[in-house]
């Protein structure tokens, strides 16, 4: 077949040729396109194909700054929690900053050096990227900090003068108030609703699932991404602990154990909620639908049980007590990490993730 231009071009495509045609025409010309990002090419000119790797500078600087900043922030938050066991010296803060920098850069360097985790890491990287690049993430982060800060202040005011030491307000903060659950029940669906539903809605699931990845890897990456972001939301609470120390009489600050237990409980409950959210997101191709389902599921799991306890007979009461998230968090807040609770939440997480994987698999058969 000769390649001469035929007059019988497809009729549908001949009509709209005006502004779409302009941009490729411009780029085909030898003139450098005006939209070229100034940061990406230090030496403009004919783009070289095979020596791409050395082209690094400005971008990697920003990456390093971000990694260092995150590291310092994490170190300060964690340092606040660990206050009682840290040496009381003026060197503590500078050491924390240096440690944070070392941590951030070290993590970055390690990830670059080894292709650690392979597919899972690539998927997780993309998840985190899309979390931290979307404006919703920062809205959630701000709203979350506001809610938690407000709750903390309210607790502080209401507990003024009451006995229980400086650890008591923190105990209340982790699961002691309705606000904790309110935030949890809202945050998990909002964080997870887009994970799989959006992939399906936009069709990117097709490119994703035809890459050499397994369904399980995709589900776990979505879950881990959401969980990491969720725990990032909780990180600033570490600074509250620092505040308590700052205003406590010497030796009277909050103890480290209950605070860590509180974080552990938050992590476990969050993990199960987020796994539930990933499951509902796998079930739906509509984000809002997924969020509502997740909201209902989390609400059902953790609010109906305490309500049922009122009406249930004594034998049911003992059974339901095992599923009572409210009581669980109270215990965690007090510093009790009961292995039964840990197993309950972790197995719940696994169950949800397993179901999400199966749902994702079954989607292919439909």
């Amino acid at each position, binding site marked *: *077949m000769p*390649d001469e*231009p*035929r007059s*019988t*071009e*497809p009729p549908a*495509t*001949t009509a*709209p*040729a005006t502004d*779409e*045609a302009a*941009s*490729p*025409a411009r*780029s*085909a010309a030898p003139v*450098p*396109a005006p*939209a*070229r*990002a100034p*940061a*990406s090419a230090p030496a403009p000119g004919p*783009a*070289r*194909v*095979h020596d*791409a*790797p050395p082209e690094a500078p400005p971008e990697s600087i920003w990456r390093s700054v971000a990694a260092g900043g995150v590291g310092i922030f994490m170190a300060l938050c964690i340092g606040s929690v660990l206050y009682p066991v840290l040496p009381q010296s003026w060197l503590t803060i500078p050491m924390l900053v240096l440690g944070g920098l070392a941590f951030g850069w070290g993590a970055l360097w390690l990830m670059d050096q080894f*292709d650690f985790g*392979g*597919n899972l*890491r*690539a*998927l997780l*990287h*993309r998840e985190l*990227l*899309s979390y931290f*690049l*979307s404006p919703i993430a920062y809205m959630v982060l701000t709203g979350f900090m506001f809610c938690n800060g407000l709750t903390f202040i309210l607790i502080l005011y209401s507990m003024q003068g009451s006995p229980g030491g400086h650890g008591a307000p923190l105990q209340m903060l982790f699961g002691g108030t309705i606000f904790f659950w309110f935030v949890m029940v809202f945050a998990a669906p909002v964080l997870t609703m887009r994970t799989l539903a959006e992939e399906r809605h*936009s*069709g*990117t*699931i*097709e*490119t*994703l*699932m*035809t*890459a*050499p*990845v397994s369904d399980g890897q995709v589900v776990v990456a979505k879950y881990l991404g959401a969980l990491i972001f969720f725990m990032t939301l909780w990180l600033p609470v570490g600074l509250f602990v620092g505040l308590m120390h700052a205003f406590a009489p010497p030796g009277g600050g909050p103890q480290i154990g209950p605070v860590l237990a509180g974080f552990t409980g938050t992590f476990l409950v969050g993990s199960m909620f987020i796994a539930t959210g990933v499951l509902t997101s796998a079930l739906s191709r509509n984000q809002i639908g997924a969020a509502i389902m997740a909201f209902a599921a989390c609400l059902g799991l953790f609010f109906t049980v305490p309500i049922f306890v009122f009406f249930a007979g004594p034998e049911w009461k003992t059974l339901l007590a095992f599923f009572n998230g409210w009581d669980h968090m109270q215990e965690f807040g007090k510093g009790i990490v009961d292995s039964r609770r840990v197993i309950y939440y972790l197995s719940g997480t696994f169950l949800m993730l397993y179901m999400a994987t199966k749902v994702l698999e079954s989607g*292919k*058969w439909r």
Partner: protein
Amino acid sequence: MIEVRNLVKEFPGRRAVDDISFTVRKGEILGFLGPNGAGKTTTMRILTGFMPATGGQVTVGGHDVFDEPDETRRRLGYMPENVPLYPEMRVDEYLEFRARLRKVPASRRQAQIGRAMEMCRVTDRRRQVIGTLSKGYRQRVGQADALVGQPEYLVLDEPTVGLDPKQIREVRSLVRELGRDHTILLSTHILPEVEMTCSRVIIIDNGKIVAQDTTEALRAAQQASTEVVVHARLPMPDGGASTSPVPAAREALMGLPGVLAVTVEDDAAVAKLRIKAGGKDDVREGIFRLAVAKGWVLLEMRREALSLEDIFVKLTESPEPGEA
């Protein structure tokens, strides 16, 4: 080599792919042609391992797509219809992500991404957020995505849909260029595309293969029933001027071997005849000899070659008009 054997895909109440078998040979560009809803996308989704088949088997380079998904997926580059991409990522970020998913070693990643971007001409937009790209550029990112990881096989689902004529031409030349070192399966409902880019074509309709051959052979086969249009000035019969010479000429033409039907389009001084012929031999030779013998003045004789479009329409015409 991609081998498809007795592939069946059933959706509730509908058989989208109905027992089709074909092979994509190494190094060829195979056009997968059919009207919308014929089962092209479904077949491609099964080929790429996105969907399991209801029956039959698909192997890519000897590996079964269902049993060894990792092996086959690594060898296949796939560009789905409408090119789904993550709008919040930058072009190079996205390609890097895809390269990692396809397990390209870190040492070769940047070079491969650079090469893919260069081939698909997106290098000038590498730092742009995908959501802000025009349709044409998105299409190119999709092509670059399929190329990352240097797969042997490329599966392109409607690669030119929604593009303007200039971009369509660019895509076609890119496909031809890629055809030099890739095996390509390309689906389309646009005929000129197949005629221009593909070495072989499979026509599919209602989930069934209705024809498969090289582009040339398919056309040649259809030309076995060709039409020849003859314009000739016929000498008046010696006797009276009242009788037209045309019926006699028609009779004479009907007597030629291979001629199936002759229709008279005009019986004026210059007779216009449309001759429908079958068989392997070219009827034009016989017509010429007849004209010389009878003393016709041949003004025009042309064979109306069927374009692939005619073949396509012929093959995919459903006998019952009600059938979708």
